[in-house]
């Protein structure tokens, strides 16, 4: 098996927020005991409802944020503390792509300046070499010299996202975390970016942590996926397996809700109720208030992972066939 590039071990992160004007401080468990591992050169998709902790997990994976407990290994070593020089050097190896490319770009700097910026920051090569390298990188993502001198707002959404991609890849990182990189884009532009990403991954042996709630895209890009619900992973396994035969009732609902063009009559599982509040996490299985097959024990006992024969892990009382294993995904 290929070695893993990124390992999250029992990561938890909570924020304290206040409820209302004079309310008490309430801890919000954004991420709760999440363990994941990403193999070199592969794509791991992280899906789940809004607020389920996907972005937080992504940030922790990059060391942009520190977990309250658990640890992150990058190629087997722990990440240095944020904003230290060592941490800054580390940036060359791990990069991030955000949902909104316009926001991630400085509106006042030309594209080439911004793509070159990592080289400037890490002081690599001479000025002219940097420029050439940046141009080559832009070319690699399908932008030409005229785009290079443009300002961000002069580009289309897809071009912007490609510029961001070029900036992230210019240091040739090993790991790229994509936080909903295409959900703000048009279908056609989305297709462009997805194609570019997949091509680059092949070419550069990039490892991707791909955060998205668009299962169609996830299906397109990832080998394995993890489904998060309220800060925990509820199902984890090969993407095609999870999408074709979801096991966890939440994954089922998610998959059924994917709108597919040209399909009018279809059984959609409409979840009752509201995405729960992470500050008031339900007891037992967090999904039980919305679950169609909830049993009494779901209210009390938090389910543990069981590994199914096809290699996936599910945390649900209803699929308790194998003895529970705590460690997943290795």
């Amino acid at each position, binding site marked *: 098996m290929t070695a893993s590039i990124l390992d999250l071990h029992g990561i938890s992160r909570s924020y304290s*927020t*206040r409820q209302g*004007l*004079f*309310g008490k401080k309430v801890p919000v468990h954004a991420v709760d005991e999440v363990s994941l591992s990403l193999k070199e050169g592969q794509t791991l998709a992280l899906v789940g409802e809004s607020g389920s902790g996907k972005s937080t997990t992504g940030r922790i994976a990059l060391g942009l944020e520190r977990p309250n407990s658990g640890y992150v290994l990058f190629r087997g070593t722990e990440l240095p503390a944020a904003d230290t020089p060592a941490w800054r050097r580390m940036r060359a190896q791990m990069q991030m792509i955000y949902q909104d490319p316009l926001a991630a770009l400085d509106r006042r700097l030309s594209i080439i300046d911004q793509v070159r910026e990592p080289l400037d920051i890490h002081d690599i090569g001479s000025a002219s070499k940097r420029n050439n390298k940046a141009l080559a990188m832009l070319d690699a993502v399908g932008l030409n010299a005229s785009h290079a001198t443009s300002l961000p707002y002069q580009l289309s959404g897809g071009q912007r996202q490609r510029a961001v991609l070029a900036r992230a890849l210019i240091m040739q990182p090993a790991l790229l975390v994509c936080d909903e990189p295409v959900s703000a884009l048009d279908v056609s532009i989305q297709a462009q970016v997805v194609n570019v990403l997949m091509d680059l991954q092949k070419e550069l042996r990039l490892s991707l942590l791909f955060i998205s709630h668009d299962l169609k895209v996830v299906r397109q890009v990832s080998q394995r996926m993890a489904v998060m619900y309220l800060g925990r992973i509820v199902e984890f396994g090969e993407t095609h397996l999870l999408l074709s035969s979801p096991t966890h009732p939440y994954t089922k609902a998610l998959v059924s809700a994917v709108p597919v063009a040209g399909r009018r009559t279809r059984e959609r599982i409409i979840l009752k109720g509201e995405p729960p509040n992470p500050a008031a996490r339900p007891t037992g299985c967090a999904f039980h208030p919305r679950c169609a097959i909830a049993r009494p024990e779901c209210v009390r006992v938090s389910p543990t992972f069981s590994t199914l024969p096809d290699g996936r892990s599910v945390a649900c009382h209803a699929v308790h066939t194998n003895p529970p294993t705590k460690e997943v995904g290795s």
Partner: protein
Amino acid sequence: MFRFFAIRVLRAVLTVALVVTFAFIVLRLSGDPARSIMGDDASPEAMAAFRREWDLDQPLWMQYLHYFAAIFQGEFGRSMRGGGPALDLVLGRIPATLMLTLPALLMKLAIGIPAGIYAALHRDSAIDRAVMVTAVAGYTVPSFVLGLVLVQVLAIWFAWLPTGGTGSLQHLILPIITLGVGGAAVLARFVRSAMLEVLGQPYIRTASAKGIPWAAVVRGHALPNAAIPTVTIVGFMVGNLIAGSVVVESVFSWPGVGNLLVVSVTARDLAVVQCILLLVAVAMVLSNLIVDFLYGFLDPRLAEANSSGGH
């Protein structure tokens, strides 16, 4: 939230202490009250006696300690000029100042806000331009020039109003106008840009889409949002109620706090100056505090942000 308030109040208190300390040092080191008050004809003996009487011959830090200790006992010192308690003297002047600044504030609000709103609603129209040019012009005339011109025209040529001093309601008119014009202009400009900002927001379109008449949209949806930045500047004006009329009081020989400040500074009537500064700083800091709290009241988002801020 409590923590936010606590920090905010602590900062306010420290600010006032800083102002008073600064003034203390500056005033004591920059001039000799004995000389300023006794006049340059006074004999050295008389001045020495004066210094002895007011403890001016003690080391500065001693004076400072005494001063602060006294403040905590509610004792704000005595005026070297007037002889009486400085606080009474200053408090006695506040009504006179407020008599000018409060109506002037009302004038600023009554003219500035509607003019700003009107200009924003008719953006780029001739009226907008006219209002803005007038506003800017009103603001760029130095207040004493305006005051002197007003006196020349209204009090001397036409003899409609008194040239200065106190006594009747008519005495109030010119100083109030002089004070009000600049502020109204500033406010008009501010309100206009705040309104423009708000009118461009999507929720204004939403309100129209709900079938709410434009006037009601402006009143019910735009104004409450435009109020948020406006409150800042109004807060500043309120904080300036006590000390914001120094020049105008001079021009109109108005016996207010501003005048007292100038005279007391010149004379180095230390206790009085410090008393005024204390009040001014408290007023400013207090109005800042109120503005901060008003923000929370006007904009629930800020209330939330405040309550989680301050780390």
